[in-house]
């Protein structure tokens, strides 16, 4: 107890010192602010993205940086909460005086963060937040590299047409922003493709037991079960489909959890022959994709996936725009970003307007993968397929 006040004083003085000298850091670097969930439930993906950003920045700096100065990344943790994300963005803009912003993982945080960027007129390149609305507000300082959640189903439409015989669908989705908006889009797309949605059910992520809803699905005998679920719910859904001996022609996942290795490890045999939409895999035919995947694996000794590729691509897009910008003023960077037309490991990037969206990148292809014998194989579109898709899915009891 004796040293208590003294210790407290020291801490206070230290803090004050830090607050005061926080602003006087090296000024010659180009500061890029990045908002990501580094703690909390989404931290796993935040980590992958952070590493990808860092790896890209190191490469860019090693190759000479931006007009002689180096990229300096300032990460802020949004903890997965919109209000914290908003505060973090504000801090990056008004205290750290970043020239450009990127990142943005969850849709909720991204919406809050981009609104701040727009108000302060600092360009923000969205990396992951996939709610359609983000680029539908007409914000002229907001750009987005990733396709929106409504586009995940696109490749399935052609695949279903080709495979044939699919007339009814059961649609299960988690009650999250991603799940609800995907479900709405998929339902619409299914209807226009002449597929009848016989069951459409949302659920709270984290349920123990999907059997009640799955027995209803079983009774409806759909040709395809389309699920928008995060990784562990996805694994439980498939395991319980197997338990209940549900045999549609096709099990399909709408991205999110179905492409992660943990899904396959947890669901084990039940994961086999499940399809999933994905935005990117290391097999995509873009220059640098495979190299990025291998470099990441070598550097961090862990696997990366499409979120990482989005981040890696974003960093290159930002660097490219900074190089082309007349000056580092927000306006010039904005103009340079708008004129972007380049190839990245994530895919070609060009910000266009379509539908209600503005300054939105549109990937030429999203992909369908299928788990085959414990490995995830790209099976659609045909031009990029590594393996032939297996259809219809055989009944559980006929599998070895």
């Amino acid at each position, binding site marked *: 107890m004796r040293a208590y006040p003294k210790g407290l004083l020291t801490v206070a003085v230290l803090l004050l010192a830090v607050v005061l000298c926080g602003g006087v850091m090296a000024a010659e670097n180009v500061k890029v602010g990045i908002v990501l969930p580094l703690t909390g439930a989404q931290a796993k993906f935040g980590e992958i993205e952070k590493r990808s950003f860092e790896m890209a920045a190191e490469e860019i700096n090693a190759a000479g940086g931006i007009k002689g100065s180096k990229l300096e990344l300032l990460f802020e943790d949004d903890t997965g909460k919109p209000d914290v994300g908003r505060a973090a963005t504000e801090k990056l803009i008004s205290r750290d005086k970043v020239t450009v912003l990127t990142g943005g993982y969850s849709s909720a945080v991204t919406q809050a963060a981009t609104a701040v960027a727009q108000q302060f007129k600092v360009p923000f390149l969205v990396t992951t937040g996939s709610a359609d609305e983000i680029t539908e507000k007409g914000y002229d300082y907001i750009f987005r590299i990733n396709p929106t959640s409504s586009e995940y189903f696109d490749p399935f439409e052609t695949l279903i047409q080709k495979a044939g015989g699919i007339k009814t669908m059961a649609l299960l989705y988690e009650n999250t922003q991603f799940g609800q908006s995907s479900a709405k889009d998929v339902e619409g797309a299914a209807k226009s493709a002449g597929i009848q949605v016989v069951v459409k*059910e949302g659920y*709270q992520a984290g349920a123990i037991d999907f059997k*009640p*809803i799955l*027995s209803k699905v*079983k009774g409806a005998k759909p040709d395809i079960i389309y699920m928008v679920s995060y990784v562990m719910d996805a694994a439980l859904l498939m395991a319980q489909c197997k338990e209940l001996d549900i045999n549609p022609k096709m099990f399909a996942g709408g991205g999110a959890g179905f492409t992660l290795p943990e899904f396959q490890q*947890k669901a*084990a045999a039940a994961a086999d022959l499940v399809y999933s939409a994905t935005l990117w895999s290391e097999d995509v035919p873009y220059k640098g994709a495979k190299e990025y995947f291998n470099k990441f694996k070598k550097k961090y000794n862990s696997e990366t996936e499409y979120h990482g590729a989005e981040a890696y691509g974003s960093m290159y897009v930002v660097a490219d725009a900074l190089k082309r910008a007349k000056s580092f003023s927000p306006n010039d960077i904005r103009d340079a970003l708008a004129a972007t037309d380049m190839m990245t490991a994530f895919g070609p990037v060009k910000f266009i307007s379509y539908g209600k969206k503005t300054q939105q990148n549109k990937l030429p292809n999203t992909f369908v993968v299928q788990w085959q014998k414990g490995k995830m194989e790209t099976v659609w579109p045909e031009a990029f397929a590594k393996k032939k898709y297996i259809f219809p899915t055989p009944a559980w009891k006929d599998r070895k």
Partner: protein
Amino acid sequence: MGILLQTIVAGLLKGGLYALIGIGMTLIMGVMGIINLAHGQMMMVAMYIAYVLNTMGVDPYFSLLVAMPTLFLLGVLIQKYLLNPLIKVDTILPENQVLMTVGIGMVLTEVIRFIFKSDYKYVTTSYSSATFFLGGISFNVPLTIAFFIALAFTAAMFWFLIKTDLGRSIRATAQDKDAATLMGINTGRITVVTMGLGAALVAAAGCLLAPVYYIFPDLGGPFTAKAFVITILGGLGSTVGAILGGITLGMAESLGATYLGMEYEDIVGLAIFVAVLLFLPGGFKRLTKV
């Protein structure tokens, strides 16, 4: 018909597990008169124990033997050093003990997050999704085992409370703490033992749940919520009530999921909870009398 039967079976099996979660909570609530808002978090800790042992090749059912004593100890320590001292302190709110359990729950969650990160973990067993069919209705093997183990634990608890001295002391403390103290029962010690037992029981539930579910630091909260719903349904301090409460909740969730929609699963449980609070205060204990 098949759908209804399958729904009922699913609800019943899940209910068995809920009962086991509820028994620990009902004991604590009955004896100490407080809600333990760290109950689900204790289960989460037990599940991580099962996970760590599993990475060393131990079957989750054997990890019961480690997780239960460990959690018993944790419960004892919490009660002795964090909750009991509060009884003597003069404060404005009598709920300080409950608020303390909120803090404890946060600490448990965050310590686990610190060690294991937020990643999903899971216990791999060969039988996780093993099933057998009875008349076209699928039974999940681990859940069926969990159901019977839960019944066995409840029977054992019942016997313990009725037949042993310690058990009788616990019941006496639950009924009237002051009278029990006057009768020479060391109620301080009884609360410590009860908390330990409650923690050990929910640890058992965690180990039984581990093979069919997955593990992450934040899973405690929802299970705490389920535990108090079960306890209010069953009536404070009633083991039989906890079983009935658990099964009722399991069934209600399942039937709600099938016939209302899966998104109503949680609302159904909460609605029953509110209904019982209003129309049957005291829960099933009022009906069963034990």
